[in-house]
Protein backbone atom coordinates (compact mmCIF):
# COMPACT_ATOMS: atom_id res chain seq x y z
CA UNK A 1 0.00 0.00 0.00
CA UNK A 2 1.07 3.53 -0.71
CA UNK A 3 0.15 6.25 1.76
CA UNK A 4 1.17 9.89 1.59
CA UNK A 5 0.58 12.97 3.69
CA UNK A 6 1.57 16.41 2.39
CA UNK A 7 1.27 19.64 4.36
CA UNK A 8 2.04 23.20 3.41
CA UNK A 9 1.66 26.53 5.14
CA UNK A 10 0.83 28.23 1.85
CA UNK A 11 -2.71 29.52 1.38
CA UNK A 12 -4.64 27.58 -1.25
CA UNK A 13 -8.16 27.99 -2.51
CA UNK A 14 -9.99 24.89 -1.17
CA UNK A 15 -11.70 24.32 -4.53
CA UNK A 16 -8.33 24.16 -6.29
CA UNK A 17 -6.61 21.72 -3.94
CA UNK A 18 -7.98 18.52 -5.43
CA UNK A 19 -7.12 19.58 -8.97
CA UNK A 20 -3.60 20.58 -7.97
CA UNK A 21 -3.15 17.24 -6.22
CA UNK A 22 -4.58 15.25 -9.13
CA UNK A 23 -2.31 17.00 -11.60
CA UNK A 24 0.81 16.50 -9.50
CA UNK A 25 -0.03 12.83 -8.91
CA UNK A 26 -0.14 12.11 -12.62
CA UNK A 27 3.63 12.35 -13.03
CA UNK A 28 4.58 11.29 -9.50
CA UNK A 29 2.69 8.68 -7.47
CA UNK A 30 0.66 7.52 -10.46
CA UNK A 31 3.89 6.98 -12.40
CA UNK A 32 5.55 4.43 -10.15
CA UNK A 33 5.32 0.67 -10.14
CA UNK A 34 7.08 -1.83 -7.92
CA UNK A 35 5.19 -5.04 -8.48
CA UNK A 36 2.22 -4.03 -10.66
CA UNK A 37 -0.34 -4.55 -7.87
CA UNK A 38 -2.74 -1.70 -7.07
CA UNK A 39 -3.62 -1.68 -3.39
CA UNK A 40 -7.02 -1.39 -1.74
CA UNK A 41 -5.75 1.41 0.50
CA UNK A 42 -3.62 3.80 -1.58
CA UNK A 43 -4.29 7.34 -0.37
CA UNK A 44 -2.49 10.67 -0.55
CA UNK A 45 -3.88 13.50 1.60
CA UNK A 46 -2.99 17.15 1.21
CA UNK A 47 -3.49 19.92 3.78
CA UNK A 48 -2.84 23.66 3.39
CA UNK A 49 -3.33 25.88 6.44
CA UNK A 50 -2.09 29.21 5.08
CA UNK A 51 -0.13 29.87 8.30
CA UNK A 52 2.84 31.42 6.48
CA UNK A 53 0.83 33.61 4.12
CA UNK A 54 1.03 37.37 4.68
CA UNK A 55 -2.23 38.98 5.84
CA UNK A 56 -4.50 39.65 2.90
CA UNK A 57 -2.57 37.44 0.51
CA UNK A 58 -4.67 35.95 -2.27
CA UNK A 59 -4.92 32.18 -2.16
CA UNK A 60 -3.25 30.07 -4.79
CA UNK A 61 -6.10 29.19 -7.10
CA UNK A 62 -6.43 27.48 -10.44
CA UNK A 63 -9.21 29.77 -11.61
CA UNK A 64 -7.40 33.04 -11.06
CA UNK A 65 -6.76 35.32 -13.97
CA UNK A 66 -3.38 36.85 -14.60
CA UNK A 67 -3.83 40.60 -14.73
CA UNK A 68 -1.82 40.78 -17.93
CA UNK A 69 -4.04 38.17 -19.50
CA UNK A 70 -7.01 40.49 -19.18
CA UNK A 71 -5.27 42.73 -21.66
CA UNK A 72 -3.27 40.33 -23.78
CA UNK A 73 -5.29 37.18 -23.99
CA UNK A 74 -7.54 34.56 -22.45
CA UNK A 75 -7.48 33.73 -18.74
CA UNK A 76 -4.51 31.60 -17.63
CA UNK A 77 -2.85 30.53 -14.42
CA UNK A 78 -1.27 33.31 -12.46
CA UNK A 79 2.40 33.19 -11.61
CA UNK A 80 1.85 32.02 -8.02
CA UNK A 81 -0.36 29.14 -9.11
CA UNK A 82 2.11 28.05 -11.74
CA UNK A 83 5.00 28.23 -9.30
CA UNK A 84 3.15 26.27 -6.64
CA UNK A 85 1.92 23.63 -9.09
CA UNK A 86 5.52 23.05 -10.18
CA UNK A 87 6.71 22.96 -6.57
CA UNK A 88 4.05 20.43 -5.60
CA UNK A 89 4.69 18.27 -8.63
CA UNK A 90 8.46 18.16 -8.04
CA UNK A 91 7.96 17.50 -4.34
CA UNK A 92 5.55 14.63 -4.93
CA UNK A 93 7.83 13.15 -7.59
CA UNK A 94 10.71 13.10 -5.12
CA UNK A 95 8.49 11.46 -2.49
CA UNK A 96 7.29 8.88 -5.00
CA UNK A 97 10.87 8.07 -6.00
CA UNK A 98 11.66 7.23 -2.38
CA UNK A 99 8.95 4.57 -2.46
CA UNK A 100 10.53 3.00 -5.54
CA UNK A 101 13.96 3.03 -3.89
CA UNK A 102 12.41 0.98 -1.08
CA UNK A 103 10.70 -1.55 -3.35
CA UNK A 104 10.67 -4.87 -1.54
CA UNK A 105 14.06 -6.42 -2.21
CA UNK A 106 14.89 -3.80 -4.84
CA UNK A 107 18.53 -3.21 -5.70
CA UNK A 108 17.98 -0.79 -8.59
CA UNK A 109 16.10 2.41 -9.29
CA UNK A 110 14.98 2.39 -12.90
CA UNK A 111 13.57 5.27 -14.92
CA UNK A 112 11.66 4.17 -18.01
CA UNK A 113 11.32 6.99 -20.51
CA UNK A 114 9.25 6.37 -23.62
CA UNK A 115 8.87 8.85 -26.46
CA UNK A 116 6.09 8.47 -28.97
CA UNK A 117 5.30 10.55 -32.02
CA UNK A 118 1.63 9.58 -31.66
CA UNK A 119 0.46 10.76 -28.27
CA UNK A 120 1.05 10.62 -24.52
CA UNK A 121 -1.23 7.60 -23.87
CA UNK A 122 0.74 5.52 -26.36
CA UNK A 123 3.99 6.41 -24.62
CA UNK A 124 2.45 5.82 -21.19
CA UNK A 125 0.99 2.41 -22.12
CA UNK A 126 4.37 1.25 -23.35
CA UNK A 127 6.17 2.60 -20.26
CA UNK A 128 3.69 0.96 -17.88
CA UNK A 129 3.94 -2.36 -19.68
CA UNK A 130 7.73 -2.35 -19.38
CA UNK A 131 7.53 -1.34 -15.72
CA UNK A 132 5.13 -4.21 -14.95
CA UNK A 133 7.08 -6.91 -16.77
CA UNK A 134 8.46 -9.46 -14.33
CA UNK A 135 10.92 -10.67 -16.95
CA UNK A 136 12.29 -7.18 -17.65
CA UNK A 137 12.67 -6.66 -13.91
CA UNK A 138 14.41 -9.97 -13.28
CA UNK A 139 16.76 -9.22 -16.19
CA UNK A 140 17.64 -5.92 -14.52
CA UNK A 141 18.31 -7.75 -11.27
CA UNK A 142 20.55 -10.16 -13.18
CA UNK A 143 22.39 -7.24 -14.85
CA UNK A 144 21.31 -8.48 -18.27
CA UNK A 145 20.91 -5.90 -21.07
CA UNK A 146 17.87 -7.78 -22.31
CA UNK A 147 16.26 -5.42 -24.83
CA UNK A 148 14.24 -8.33 -26.22
CA UNK A 149 12.13 -8.47 -23.07
CA UNK A 150 11.64 -4.69 -23.23
CA UNK A 151 10.33 -4.90 -26.80
CA UNK A 152 8.16 -7.86 -25.89
CA UNK A 153 6.53 -5.85 -23.09
CA UNK A 154 5.80 -2.96 -25.46
CA UNK A 155 4.33 -5.34 -28.01
CA UNK A 156 1.60 -6.72 -25.78
CA UNK A 157 0.77 -3.46 -23.99
CA UNK A 158 -3.00 -2.97 -23.87
CA UNK A 159 -4.13 -0.52 -26.54
CA UNK A 160 -0.95 -0.66 -28.58
CA UNK A 161 -1.17 -1.94 -32.14
CA UNK A 162 1.33 -2.39 -34.91
CA UNK A 163 0.85 -0.75 -38.27
CA UNK A 164 3.33 -2.43 -40.63
CA UNK A 165 1.28 -1.62 -43.71
CA UNK A 166 2.07 2.07 -43.51
CA UNK A 167 5.00 3.20 -45.62
CA UNK A 168 7.70 4.98 -43.69
CA UNK A 169 7.49 8.23 -45.59
CA UNK A 170 3.80 8.58 -44.85
CA UNK A 171 3.76 7.62 -41.22
CA UNK A 172 0.73 9.60 -40.14
CA UNK A 173 0.19 12.55 -37.97
CA UNK A 174 -2.78 10.92 -36.34
CA UNK A 175 -6.34 11.89 -37.13
CA UNK A 176 -8.55 9.13 -35.75
CA UNK A 177 -8.76 6.95 -32.67
CA UNK A 178 -7.39 3.79 -34.38
CA UNK A 179 -4.20 5.43 -35.44
CA UNK A 180 -3.66 6.65 -31.88
CA UNK A 181 -2.46 3.18 -31.02
CA UNK A 182 0.19 2.65 -33.62
CA UNK A 183 3.72 1.57 -32.94
CA UNK A 184 6.10 0.60 -35.71
CA UNK A 185 8.64 -2.05 -34.73
CA UNK A 186 11.01 -0.77 -37.41
CA UNK A 187 10.96 2.74 -35.95
CA UNK A 188 11.54 1.55 -32.40
CA UNK A 189 14.84 2.09 -30.60
CA UNK A 190 16.02 1.15 -27.12
CA UNK A 191 18.98 2.55 -25.17
CA UNK A 192 20.37 2.47 -21.67
CA UNK A 193 21.23 5.89 -20.28
CA UNK A 194 23.94 5.57 -17.64
CA UNK A 195 23.39 7.34 -14.34
CA UNK A 196 26.91 8.81 -14.41
CA UNK A 197 26.15 11.02 -17.42
CA UNK A 198 28.31 9.02 -19.80
CA UNK A 199 27.24 8.20 -23.36
CA UNK A 200 24.04 6.22 -23.94
CA UNK A 201 24.37 2.58 -24.82
CA UNK A 202 22.29 1.81 -27.90
CA UNK A 203 20.80 -1.67 -27.79
CA UNK A 204 18.36 -1.47 -30.67
CA UNK A 205 18.18 1.18 -33.38
CA UNK A 206 15.07 1.38 -35.56
CA UNK A 207 14.29 -2.26 -35.07
CA UNK A 208 17.83 -3.47 -35.72
CA UNK A 209 19.98 -4.87 -32.88
CA UNK A 210 23.28 -3.17 -32.19
CA UNK A 211 26.58 -4.88 -31.51
CA UNK A 212 26.41 -4.38 -27.76
CA UNK A 213 29.60 -3.96 -25.77
CA UNK A 214 28.80 -6.43 -23.00
CA UNK A 215 31.48 -5.06 -20.70
CA UNK A 216 30.04 -1.55 -21.00
CA UNK A 217 26.51 -2.92 -20.53
CA UNK A 218 27.58 -4.69 -17.35
CA UNK A 219 29.21 -1.50 -16.03
CA UNK A 220 25.99 0.42 -16.59
CA UNK A 221 23.81 -2.26 -15.05
CA UNK A 222 25.96 -2.41 -11.94
CA UNK A 223 25.03 1.18 -11.08
CA UNK A 224 22.14 1.63 -8.64
CA UNK A 225 20.33 4.02 -10.98
CA UNK A 226 19.53 3.27 -14.60
CA UNK A 227 17.41 4.85 -17.31
CA UNK A 228 15.86 2.90 -20.16
CA UNK A 229 15.05 5.14 -23.11
CA UNK A 230 12.59 3.84 -25.68
CA UNK A 231 11.95 5.80 -28.84
CA UNK A 232 8.77 4.86 -30.66
CA UNK A 233 9.30 7.81 -32.97
CA UNK A 234 12.73 7.13 -34.33
CA UNK A 235 12.38 8.41 -37.86
CA UNK A 236 15.44 8.83 -40.01
CA UNK A 237 16.34 12.53 -40.20
CA UNK A 238 15.27 14.97 -41.45
CA UNK A 239 11.75 13.56 -41.29
CA UNK A 240 12.10 12.93 -37.56
CA UNK A 241 12.79 16.60 -36.94
CA UNK A 242 9.27 17.44 -38.02
CA UNK A 243 7.51 15.13 -35.59
CA UNK A 244 6.53 16.20 -32.10
CA UNK A 245 7.51 13.73 -29.40
CA UNK A 246 5.25 12.85 -26.46
CA UNK A 247 7.11 11.56 -23.43
CA UNK A 248 5.93 9.32 -20.59
CA UNK A 249 8.10 8.40 -17.62
CA UNK A 250 7.62 5.53 -15.17
CA UNK A 251 9.80 4.83 -12.16
CA UNK A 252 10.32 1.22 -11.18
CA UNK A 253 12.84 -1.20 -9.70
CA UNK A 254 14.21 -4.66 -10.28
CA UNK A 255 12.65 -7.86 -8.97
CA UNK A 256 14.82 -9.92 -6.67
CA UNK A 257 14.71 -13.16 -4.64
CA UNK A 258 14.06 -11.00 -1.62
CA UNK A 259 10.67 -9.89 -2.99
CA UNK A 260 9.48 -13.50 -2.94
CA UNK A 261 10.92 -14.07 0.53
CA UNK A 262 9.16 -11.00 1.97
CA UNK A 263 5.81 -11.65 0.34
CA UNK A 264 5.84 -15.38 0.93
CA UNK A 265 5.97 -14.51 4.60
CA UNK A 266 3.48 -11.59 4.65
CA UNK A 267 0.08 -13.14 4.97
CA UNK A 268 -3.54 -12.21 5.48
Amino acid at each position, binding site marked *: *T*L*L*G*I*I*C*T*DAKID*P*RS*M*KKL*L*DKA*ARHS*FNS*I*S*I*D*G*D*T*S*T*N*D*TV*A*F*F*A*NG*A*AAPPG*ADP*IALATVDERAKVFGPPRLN*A*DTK*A*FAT*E*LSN*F*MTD*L*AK*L*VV*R*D*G*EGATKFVTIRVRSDVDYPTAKRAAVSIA*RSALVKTALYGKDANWGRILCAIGYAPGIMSSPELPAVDFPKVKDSDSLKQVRPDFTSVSFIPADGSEELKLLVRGEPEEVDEVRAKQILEMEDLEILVRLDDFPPPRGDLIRSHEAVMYTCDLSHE*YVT*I*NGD*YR*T
Partner: protein
Amino acid sequence: ADRSIPAAKQKYVPSSGTYPKGFLAGSAFAGVKASNTKYDDLALVVSEEPCPAAAIFTKNIFQAAPVKVSKSWLAKSRSEGQTFRGVVVNSGCANAVTGKVGQEHAEAMARKTDECFSDADETPKTLVMSTGVIGQRLPIDRITEAIPHLHSNLGSTHDHWLDAAKAICTTDTFPKLLSRTFTLPSHPDTTYSIAGMTKGAGMIHPNMG
Protein backbone atom coordinates in the same frame (compact mmCIF):
# COMPACT_ATOMS: atom_id res chain seq x y z
CA ALA B 1 10.88 -7.62 12.45
CA ASP B 2 14.07 -5.71 12.99
CA ARG B 3 13.60 -2.20 11.64
CA SER B 4 17.22 -1.11 11.54
CA ILE B 5 17.82 0.88 8.37
CA PRO B 6 20.13 -0.82 5.84
CA ALA B 7 23.38 1.07 5.27
CA ALA B 8 22.56 1.63 1.59
CA LYS B 9 19.28 3.35 2.47
CA GLN B 10 20.45 5.60 5.28
CA LYS B 11 21.33 8.39 2.85
CA TYR B 12 17.61 8.79 2.08
CA VAL B 13 16.63 9.54 5.68
CA PRO B 14 16.90 13.26 6.51
CA SER B 15 18.61 14.35 9.71
CA SER B 16 16.86 17.74 9.75
CA GLY B 17 14.04 19.52 8.01
CA THR B 18 12.03 22.71 7.58
CA TYR B 19 8.42 22.03 8.46
CA PRO B 20 5.31 24.07 7.68
CA LYS B 21 4.08 26.47 10.33
CA GLY B 22 1.06 25.41 12.32
CA PHE B 23 1.39 21.68 11.67
CA LEU B 24 2.20 19.06 14.30
CA ALA B 25 3.14 15.42 13.94
CA GLY B 26 3.60 12.51 16.30
CA SER B 27 3.38 8.79 16.87
CA ALA B 28 2.36 6.26 19.51
CA PHE B 29 2.28 2.53 20.12
CA ALA B 30 -1.01 0.65 20.00
CA GLY B 31 0.11 -2.89 19.22
CA VAL B 32 -2.05 -3.23 16.12
CA LYS B 33 -0.09 -6.26 14.97
CA ALA B 34 0.39 -8.81 17.72
CA SER B 35 3.94 -9.57 16.64
CA ASN B 36 4.92 -5.91 17.00
CA THR B 37 5.74 -5.21 20.61
CA LYS B 38 8.07 -2.26 20.39
CA TYR B 39 7.54 -0.01 17.35
CA ASP B 40 5.03 2.84 17.15
CA ASP B 41 2.19 1.97 14.80
CA LEU B 42 -0.04 5.01 15.09
CA ALA B 43 0.72 8.39 13.53
CA LEU B 44 -1.08 11.70 13.61
CA VAL B 45 -0.43 14.80 11.52
CA VAL B 46 -2.58 17.83 12.30
CA SER B 47 -2.94 21.51 11.67
CA GLU B 48 -3.31 23.64 14.78
CA GLU B 49 -6.15 25.45 13.02
CA PRO B 50 -8.79 23.84 10.81
CA CYS B 51 -7.77 23.99 7.17
CA PRO B 52 -8.88 22.83 3.73
CA ALA B 53 -7.89 19.34 2.68
CA ALA B 54 -7.95 17.18 -0.42
CA ALA B 55 -7.03 13.61 -1.16
CA ILE B 56 -6.71 11.11 -3.94
CA PHE B 57 -7.65 7.47 -3.45
CA THR B 58 -7.03 4.10 -5.04
CA LYS B 59 -9.31 3.19 -7.92
CA ASN B 60 -9.24 -0.47 -6.85
CA ILE B 61 -12.88 -1.61 -6.69
CA PHE B 62 -12.32 -3.21 -3.27
CA GLN B 63 -11.61 0.02 -1.47
CA ALA B 64 -10.65 -0.36 2.18
CA ALA B 65 -12.88 1.05 4.93
CA PRO B 66 -10.66 4.08 5.69
CA VAL B 67 -10.65 4.95 1.99
CA LYS B 68 -14.45 4.88 1.83
CA VAL B 69 -14.82 6.88 5.04
CA SER B 70 -12.28 9.59 4.20
CA LYS B 71 -13.57 9.83 0.65
CA SER B 72 -17.15 10.40 1.77
CA TRP B 73 -16.12 13.08 4.26
CA LEU B 74 -14.06 14.91 1.69
CA ALA B 75 -16.88 14.76 -0.84
CA LYS B 76 -19.20 16.27 1.75
CA SER B 77 -16.64 18.93 2.64
CA ARG B 78 -16.53 20.15 -0.94
CA SER B 79 -20.23 20.91 -0.96
CA GLU B 80 -20.34 22.34 2.56
CA GLY B 81 -16.98 24.14 2.73
CA GLN B 82 -15.90 21.98 5.65
CA THR B 83 -12.34 22.12 7.01
CA PHE B 84 -10.18 19.44 8.62
CA ARG B 85 -7.54 19.18 11.30
CA GLY B 86 -5.48 16.29 9.96
CA VAL B 87 -5.12 12.57 9.48
CA VAL B 88 -4.70 9.59 11.80
CA VAL B 89 -2.93 6.53 10.45
CA ASN B 90 -2.35 3.01 11.72
CA SER B 91 0.09 0.49 10.31
CA GLY B 92 -0.04 -3.28 10.73
CA CYS B 93 -3.63 -3.79 9.56
CA ALA B 94 -5.17 -2.39 6.38
CA ASN B 95 -8.78 -2.58 7.61
CA ALA B 96 -9.60 -3.72 4.07
CA VAL B 97 -12.30 -6.20 3.08
CA THR B 98 -13.66 -5.97 6.63
CA GLY B 99 -17.31 -5.15 5.82
CA LYS B 100 -19.51 -2.80 7.81
CA VAL B 101 -17.58 -3.39 11.02
CA GLY B 102 -14.44 -2.19 9.28
CA GLN B 103 -16.18 1.02 8.32
CA GLU B 104 -17.36 1.54 11.89
CA HIS B 105 -13.80 1.00 13.09
CA ALA B 106 -12.43 3.57 10.65
CA GLU B 107 -15.04 6.09 11.79
CA ALA B 108 -14.35 5.32 15.46
CA MET B 109 -10.63 5.90 14.96
CA ALA B 110 -11.26 9.30 13.42
CA ARG B 111 -13.98 10.25 15.92
CA LYS B 112 -11.70 9.44 18.85
CA THR B 113 -9.05 11.70 17.35
CA ASP B 114 -11.62 14.46 16.82
CA GLU B 115 -12.41 14.35 20.54
CA CYS B 116 -8.84 15.45 21.26
CA PHE B 117 -9.43 18.81 19.57
CA SER B 118 -10.95 21.68 21.49
CA ASP B 119 -13.09 22.65 18.50
CA ALA B 120 -14.71 19.21 18.30
CA ASP B 121 -18.28 19.20 17.03
CA GLU B 122 -20.39 16.85 14.96
CA THR B 123 -18.53 17.37 11.69
CA PRO B 124 -15.56 15.07 11.07
CA LYS B 125 -12.21 16.80 11.53
CA THR B 126 -9.84 13.90 10.94
CA LEU B 127 -9.23 11.78 7.87
CA VAL B 128 -8.18 8.20 8.44
CA MET B 129 -5.71 5.84 6.75
CA SER B 130 -4.69 2.25 7.42
CA THR B 131 -1.98 0.03 5.98
CA GLY B 132 -0.92 -3.54 6.58
CA VAL B 133 -2.43 -6.94 6.05
CA ILE B 134 -5.76 -7.21 4.21
CA GLY B 135 -8.76 -9.10 5.57
CA GLN B 136 -8.20 -8.64 9.29
CA ARG B 137 -10.24 -6.47 11.62
CA LEU B 138 -8.59 -3.61 13.44
CA PRO B 139 -7.99 -4.09 17.16
CA ILE B 140 -10.03 -0.93 17.55
CA ASP B 141 -10.03 -0.84 21.35
CA ARG B 142 -6.25 -0.82 21.49
CA ILE B 143 -6.18 1.95 18.89
CA THR B 144 -8.78 4.21 20.51
CA GLU B 145 -7.12 3.75 23.90
CA ALA B 146 -3.79 4.89 22.42
CA ILE B 147 -5.15 7.95 20.59
CA PRO B 148 -5.15 10.38 23.56
CA HIS B 149 -1.52 9.42 24.16
CA LEU B 150 -0.85 9.88 20.45
CA HIS B 151 -2.33 13.36 20.65
CA SER B 152 -0.17 14.26 23.65
CA ASN B 153 2.93 13.19 21.69
CA LEU B 154 2.40 15.80 18.97
CA GLY B 155 5.11 18.32 18.23
CA SER B 156 6.72 20.32 15.46
CA THR B 157 10.35 19.18 15.58
CA HIS B 158 12.14 17.09 12.99
CA ASP B 159 12.02 14.13 15.38
CA HIS B 160 8.25 14.39 15.69
CA TRP B 161 7.87 14.29 11.91
CA LEU B 162 10.37 11.48 11.55
CA ASP B 163 8.67 9.43 14.26
CA ALA B 164 5.35 9.80 12.45
CA ALA B 165 7.00 8.77 9.17
CA LYS B 166 8.40 5.67 10.89
CA ALA B 167 5.06 4.77 12.47
CA ILE B 168 3.28 4.48 9.11
CA CYS B 169 5.85 1.99 7.77
CA THR B 170 5.08 -1.69 7.24
CA THR B 171 7.68 -3.65 5.27
CA ASP B 172 9.48 -0.41 4.41
CA THR B 173 13.20 -0.49 5.13
CA PHE B 174 13.41 3.25 5.80
CA PRO B 175 11.06 6.12 6.68
CA LYS B 176 10.28 8.47 3.81
CA LEU B 177 10.16 12.09 4.83
CA LEU B 178 10.91 15.22 2.81
CA SER B 179 10.61 18.91 3.50
CA ARG B 180 11.62 22.04 1.68
CA THR B 181 10.96 25.75 1.46
CA PHE B 182 9.80 27.85 -1.47
CA THR B 183 8.69 31.34 -2.36
CA LEU B 184 5.95 32.63 -4.61
CA PRO B 185 6.37 35.40 -7.19
CA SER B 186 3.76 37.66 -5.58
CA HIS B 187 5.54 37.72 -2.17
CA PRO B 188 9.20 36.87 -2.80
CA ASP B 189 10.13 37.79 0.79
CA THR B 190 7.76 35.24 2.29
CA THR B 191 9.13 31.76 2.80
CA TYR B 192 6.66 28.89 2.68
CA SER B 193 7.31 25.28 3.64
CA ILE B 194 6.05 21.99 2.37
CA ALA B 195 6.60 18.68 4.12
CA GLY B 196 5.46 15.20 3.33
CA MET B 197 5.81 11.63 4.34
CA THR B 198 5.00 8.52 2.40
CA LYS B 199 5.19 4.79 2.88
CA GLY B 200 5.16 1.83 0.59
CA ALA B 201 7.39 -0.97 -0.52
CA GLY B 202 5.13 -3.69 -1.92
CA MET B 203 1.70 -3.83 -3.59
CA ILE B 204 2.72 -0.65 -5.35
CA HIS B 205 1.23 0.34 -8.67
CA PRO B 206 -0.86 3.34 -7.66
CA ASN B 207 -3.73 4.51 -9.79
CA MET B 208 -5.30 7.23 -7.67
CA GLY B 209 -7.84 9.88 -8.45
